[in-house]
Protein backbone atom coordinates (compact mmCIF):
# COMPACT_ATOMS: atom_id res chain seq x y z
CA UNK A 1 0.00 0.00 0.00
CA UNK A 2 2.86 2.27 0.93
CA UNK A 3 4.45 1.50 -2.45
CA UNK A 4 1.22 2.53 -4.21
CA UNK A 5 1.07 5.78 -2.26
CA UNK A 6 4.67 6.54 -3.10
CA UNK A 7 4.07 5.94 -6.83
CA UNK A 8 0.97 8.13 -6.76
CA UNK A 9 2.94 10.88 -5.06
CA UNK A 10 5.76 10.69 -7.60
CA UNK A 11 3.38 10.62 -10.59
CA UNK A 12 1.46 13.60 -9.25
CA UNK A 13 4.63 15.60 -8.72
CA UNK A 14 5.92 14.68 -12.18
CA UNK A 15 2.69 15.77 -13.82
CA UNK A 16 2.70 19.06 -11.96
CA UNK A 17 6.42 19.69 -12.38
CA UNK A 18 5.94 21.41 -15.73
CA UNK A 19 3.42 24.21 -15.46
CA UNK A 20 1.66 25.62 -18.52
CA UNK A 21 4.16 27.68 -20.54
CA UNK A 22 2.72 30.99 -21.75
CA UNK A 23 2.78 31.42 -25.52
CA UNK A 24 4.46 34.86 -25.23
CA UNK A 25 4.74 35.33 -29.00
CA UNK A 26 6.01 31.82 -29.70
CA UNK A 27 3.20 30.95 -32.13
CA UNK A 28 3.66 34.25 -33.98
CA UNK A 29 7.39 33.57 -34.39
CA UNK A 30 6.67 30.11 -35.80
CA UNK A 31 4.05 31.44 -38.24
CA UNK A 32 6.46 34.14 -39.45
CA UNK A 33 8.92 31.47 -40.49
CA UNK A 34 6.44 29.39 -42.49
CA UNK A 35 6.82 29.42 -46.29
CA UNK A 36 4.21 31.53 -48.18
CA UNK A 37 0.79 29.85 -48.31
CA UNK A 38 0.15 27.54 -51.25
CA UNK A 39 -2.90 29.64 -52.25
CA UNK A 40 -0.79 32.65 -53.23
CA UNK A 41 1.59 30.37 -55.14
CA UNK A 42 -1.43 28.78 -56.86
CA UNK A 43 -2.83 32.21 -57.81
CA UNK A 44 0.46 33.19 -59.41
CA UNK A 45 0.59 29.87 -61.28
CA UNK A 46 -3.02 30.34 -62.50
CA UNK A 47 -2.25 33.89 -63.69
CA UNK A 48 0.80 32.70 -65.65
CA UNK A 49 -1.18 29.81 -67.21
CA UNK A 50 -4.06 32.13 -68.19
CA UNK A 51 -1.67 34.64 -69.74
CA UNK A 52 0.12 31.94 -71.73
CA UNK A 53 -3.21 30.51 -72.93
CA UNK A 54 -4.43 33.92 -74.11
CA UNK A 55 -1.15 34.60 -75.88
CA UNK A 56 -1.22 31.19 -77.58
CA UNK A 57 -4.85 31.74 -78.65
CA UNK A 58 -4.06 35.13 -80.20
CA UNK A 59 -1.02 33.63 -81.94
CA UNK A 60 -3.05 30.68 -83.26
CA UNK A 61 -5.79 33.05 -84.48
CA UNK A 62 -3.27 35.21 -86.40
CA UNK A 63 -1.29 32.28 -87.83
CA UNK A 64 -4.43 30.43 -88.97
CA UNK A 65 -5.55 33.35 -91.14
CA UNK A 66 -8.16 34.90 -88.85
CA UNK A 67 -9.48 31.63 -87.40
CA UNK A 68 -10.80 30.28 -90.65
CA UNK A 69 -10.24 26.74 -89.37
CA UNK A 70 -13.01 27.31 -86.78
CA UNK A 71 -15.69 28.03 -89.36
CA UNK A 72 -14.42 25.15 -91.55
CA UNK A 73 -14.62 22.73 -88.58
CA UNK A 74 -18.13 23.90 -87.68
CA UNK A 75 -19.22 23.37 -91.29
CA UNK A 76 -17.76 19.85 -91.23
CA UNK A 77 -19.46 19.07 -87.91
CA UNK A 78 -22.77 20.34 -89.25
CA UNK A 79 -22.40 18.03 -92.24
CA UNK A 80 -21.95 14.95 -89.98
CA UNK A 81 -24.89 12.58 -89.37
CA UNK A 82 -26.85 13.29 -86.14
CA UNK A 83 -25.72 9.96 -84.59
CA UNK A 84 -22.03 10.95 -84.98
CA UNK A 85 -22.63 14.34 -83.39
CA UNK A 86 -24.44 12.63 -80.49
CA UNK A 87 -21.58 10.15 -80.00
CA UNK A 88 -18.99 12.96 -80.05
CA UNK A 89 -20.95 14.92 -77.44
CA UNK A 90 -21.33 11.78 -75.28
CA UNK A 91 -17.60 10.98 -75.47
CA UNK A 92 -16.70 14.58 -74.56
CA UNK A 93 -19.03 14.60 -71.55
CA UNK A 94 -17.66 11.22 -70.37
CA UNK A 95 -14.10 12.55 -70.49
CA UNK A 96 -15.07 15.67 -68.51
CA UNK A 97 -16.99 13.57 -65.93
CA UNK A 98 -14.01 11.17 -65.52
CA UNK A 99 -11.59 14.08 -64.92
CA UNK A 100 -14.01 15.66 -62.39
CA UNK A 101 -14.52 12.36 -60.55
CA UNK A 102 -10.74 11.76 -60.33
CA UNK A 103 -10.20 15.24 -58.88
CA UNK A 104 -13.02 14.74 -56.33
CA UNK A 105 -11.68 11.32 -55.23
CA UNK A 106 -8.12 12.60 -54.76
CA UNK A 107 -9.40 15.54 -52.67
CA UNK A 108 -11.55 13.23 -50.55
CA UNK A 109 -8.51 10.99 -49.90
CA UNK A 110 -6.58 14.03 -48.72
CA UNK A 111 -9.38 14.91 -46.31
CA UNK A 112 -9.54 11.34 -44.97
CA UNK A 113 -5.76 11.18 -44.45
Amino acid sequence: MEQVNQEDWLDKELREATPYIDDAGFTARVLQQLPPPRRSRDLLRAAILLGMTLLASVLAYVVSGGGRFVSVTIERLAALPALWVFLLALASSLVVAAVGATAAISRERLLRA
Partner: protein
Amino acid sequence: MELTDADLVARVLVDDDQHAFGELVRRHQSAVRGLLRQLTRTDVALADDLAQQTFLRAYKNIRGFRGEARFSTWLYRIAYNCFREDARRRKELVGIDEAQLQTQHDPQVANPGLRHDLMRALSLLPLNERSAVLLCCQNGLSHDEAARVLDIPLGTVKTNVLRGREKLKRILADWGPN
Protein backbone atom coordinates in the same frame (compact mmCIF):
# COMPACT_ATOMS: atom_id res chain seq x y z
CA MET B 1 -17.88 23.90 -31.46
CA GLU B 2 -14.12 23.60 -31.10
CA LEU B 3 -12.34 21.94 -33.99
CA THR B 4 -10.37 18.77 -33.25
CA ASP B 5 -6.69 18.41 -34.11
CA ALA B 6 -7.71 16.14 -37.01
CA ASP B 7 -10.02 18.87 -38.41
CA LEU B 8 -7.23 21.44 -38.22
CA VAL B 9 -4.75 19.09 -39.87
CA ALA B 10 -7.27 18.48 -42.69
CA ARG B 11 -7.55 22.26 -43.23
CA VAL B 12 -3.77 22.59 -43.42
CA LEU B 13 -3.59 19.68 -45.88
CA VAL B 14 -6.39 20.74 -48.18
CA ASP B 15 -6.28 24.55 -48.08
CA ASP B 16 -2.77 25.14 -46.73
CA ASP B 17 -4.58 27.07 -43.98
CA GLN B 18 -1.86 28.68 -41.88
CA HIS B 19 -4.39 29.97 -39.33
CA ALA B 20 -5.36 26.35 -38.66
CA PHE B 21 -1.70 25.47 -38.24
CA GLY B 22 -1.33 28.44 -35.89
CA GLU B 23 -4.13 27.00 -33.75
CA LEU B 24 -2.31 23.66 -33.63
CA VAL B 25 0.88 25.44 -32.52
CA ARG B 26 -1.03 27.35 -29.83
CA ARG B 27 -2.58 24.14 -28.52
CA HIS B 28 0.63 22.13 -28.31
CA GLN B 29 3.38 24.70 -27.77
CA SER B 30 3.38 24.37 -23.99
CA ALA B 31 3.69 20.57 -23.99
CA VAL B 32 6.37 20.52 -26.69
CA ARG B 33 8.40 23.34 -25.13
CA GLY B 34 8.02 21.72 -21.70
CA LEU B 35 9.28 18.38 -22.94
CA LEU B 36 12.24 19.98 -24.70
CA ARG B 37 13.11 22.05 -21.62
CA GLN B 38 13.34 18.85 -19.62
CA LEU B 39 15.32 17.05 -22.31
CA THR B 40 17.79 19.92 -22.59
CA ARG B 41 18.09 20.13 -18.80
CA THR B 42 16.13 23.40 -18.64
CA ASP B 43 18.17 25.26 -21.26
CA VAL B 44 15.20 27.50 -22.09
CA ALA B 45 16.70 29.23 -25.15
CA LEU B 46 17.86 25.99 -26.76
CA ALA B 47 14.56 24.29 -25.95
CA ASP B 48 12.57 27.09 -27.62
CA ASP B 49 14.81 27.00 -30.71
CA LEU B 50 14.23 23.27 -30.96
CA ALA B 51 10.49 23.75 -30.43
CA GLN B 52 10.40 26.21 -33.35
CA GLN B 53 12.28 23.71 -35.51
CA THR B 54 9.80 21.04 -34.42
CA PHE B 55 6.76 23.01 -35.58
CA LEU B 56 8.39 24.11 -38.84
CA ARG B 57 9.30 20.51 -39.60
CA ALA B 58 5.78 19.42 -38.69
CA TYR B 59 4.33 21.97 -41.15
CA LYS B 60 6.62 20.88 -43.97
CA ASN B 61 5.95 17.19 -43.37
CA ILE B 62 2.30 17.34 -42.38
CA ARG B 63 1.40 14.98 -45.22
CA GLY B 64 3.39 12.37 -43.31
CA PHE B 65 0.85 12.53 -40.45
CA ARG B 66 -1.55 9.71 -41.25
CA GLY B 67 -3.69 9.98 -38.14
CA GLU B 68 -2.58 6.57 -36.79
CA ALA B 69 -1.37 8.24 -33.59
CA ARG B 70 -2.48 11.37 -31.75
CA PHE B 71 -1.17 14.60 -33.27
CA SER B 72 0.64 15.35 -30.00
CA THR B 73 2.44 11.97 -30.16
CA TRP B 74 3.53 12.75 -33.71
CA LEU B 75 4.81 16.15 -32.56
CA TYR B 76 6.72 14.60 -29.63
CA ARG B 77 8.45 12.27 -32.06
CA ILE B 78 9.56 15.20 -34.24
CA ALA B 79 10.64 17.13 -31.13
CA TYR B 80 12.65 14.19 -29.85
CA ASN B 81 14.34 13.77 -33.26
CA CYS B 82 15.19 17.50 -33.34
CA PHE B 83 16.65 17.18 -29.84
CA ARG B 84 18.68 14.08 -30.75
CA GLU B 85 20.09 15.67 -33.92
CA ASP B 86 21.07 18.76 -31.97
CA ALA B 87 22.52 16.67 -29.13
CA ARG B 88 24.63 14.75 -31.63
CA ARG B 89 26.05 18.06 -32.84
CA ARG B 90 26.71 19.21 -29.26
CA LYS B 91 27.95 16.02 -27.71
CA GLU B 92 28.34 17.66 -24.34
CA LEU B 93 24.56 17.63 -23.84
CA VAL B 94 24.34 13.85 -23.89
CA GLY B 95 27.58 12.91 -22.24
CA ILE B 96 27.54 15.67 -19.66
CA ASP B 97 29.56 15.07 -16.54
CA GLU B 98 27.31 15.03 -13.51
CA ALA B 99 29.82 17.14 -11.58
CA GLN B 100 29.40 19.85 -14.20
CA LEU B 101 25.67 19.68 -13.92
CA GLN B 102 24.46 23.07 -12.83
CA THR B 103 20.83 23.37 -13.87
CA GLN B 104 20.23 26.79 -15.37
CA HIS B 105 17.56 28.94 -13.84
CA ASP B 106 14.20 28.28 -15.43
CA PRO B 107 11.81 31.21 -14.94
CA GLN B 108 8.85 28.79 -14.97
CA VAL B 109 10.26 26.96 -11.95
CA ALA B 110 10.01 29.78 -9.49
CA ASN B 111 9.27 27.71 -6.42
CA PRO B 112 12.33 26.00 -4.99
CA GLY B 113 11.93 22.96 -2.82
CA LEU B 114 10.43 19.69 -3.95
CA ARG B 115 9.87 20.83 -7.54
CA HIS B 116 13.42 22.12 -7.77
CA ASP B 117 14.76 18.83 -6.43
CA LEU B 118 12.56 16.87 -8.82
CA MET B 119 13.87 18.87 -11.79
CA ARG B 120 17.41 18.30 -10.63
CA ALA B 121 16.78 14.60 -10.03
CA LEU B 122 15.28 14.28 -13.53
CA SER B 123 18.28 15.98 -15.08
CA LEU B 124 20.56 13.48 -13.35
CA LEU B 125 18.90 10.54 -15.12
CA PRO B 126 20.55 9.18 -18.27
CA LEU B 127 18.86 10.39 -21.46
CA ASN B 128 17.09 7.09 -22.24
CA GLU B 129 15.52 6.88 -18.76
CA ARG B 130 14.79 10.62 -18.58
CA SER B 131 12.98 10.69 -21.92
CA ALA B 132 10.94 7.57 -21.09
CA VAL B 133 9.90 8.94 -17.67
CA LEU B 134 9.08 12.36 -19.15
CA LEU B 135 6.89 10.94 -21.90
CA CYS B 136 5.08 8.30 -19.84
CA CYS B 137 4.83 9.81 -16.35
CA GLN B 138 4.79 13.52 -17.13
CA ASN B 139 3.15 13.78 -20.55
CA GLY B 140 0.76 10.86 -20.07
CA LEU B 141 1.77 8.78 -23.09
CA SER B 142 1.22 5.03 -23.00
CA HIS B 143 4.30 2.81 -23.15
CA ASP B 144 3.35 1.93 -26.71
CA GLU B 145 3.13 5.59 -27.75
CA ALA B 146 6.44 6.36 -26.03
CA ALA B 147 8.06 3.45 -27.89
CA ARG B 148 6.91 5.03 -31.17
CA VAL B 149 8.17 8.47 -30.19
CA LEU B 150 11.56 7.18 -29.05
CA ASP B 151 11.75 4.57 -31.83
CA ILE B 152 12.78 1.82 -29.43
CA PRO B 153 11.18 -1.52 -28.47
CA LEU B 154 8.24 -1.52 -26.05
CA GLY B 155 10.12 -3.66 -23.51
CA THR B 156 13.00 -1.16 -23.46
CA VAL B 157 10.58 1.68 -22.70
CA LYS B 158 9.06 -0.24 -19.80
CA THR B 159 12.52 -1.03 -18.40
CA ASN B 160 13.67 2.59 -18.75
CA VAL B 161 10.54 3.94 -17.05
CA LEU B 162 10.93 1.44 -14.19
CA ARG B 163 14.63 2.22 -13.70
CA GLY B 164 14.09 5.96 -13.98
CA ARG B 165 11.28 5.92 -11.43
CA GLU B 166 13.35 3.81 -9.02
CA LYS B 167 16.22 6.28 -9.25
CA LEU B 168 13.90 9.26 -8.77
CA LYS B 169 12.35 7.63 -5.71
CA ARG B 170 15.80 6.98 -4.29
CA ILE B 171 17.01 10.55 -4.92
CA LEU B 172 13.79 12.07 -3.57
CA ALA B 173 13.36 9.65 -0.68
CA ASP B 174 13.28 12.51 1.86
CA TRP B 175 10.26 14.07 0.15
CA GLY B 176 8.22 10.85 -0.11
CA PRO B 177 5.43 9.77 2.24
CA ASN B 178 6.71 8.04 5.36
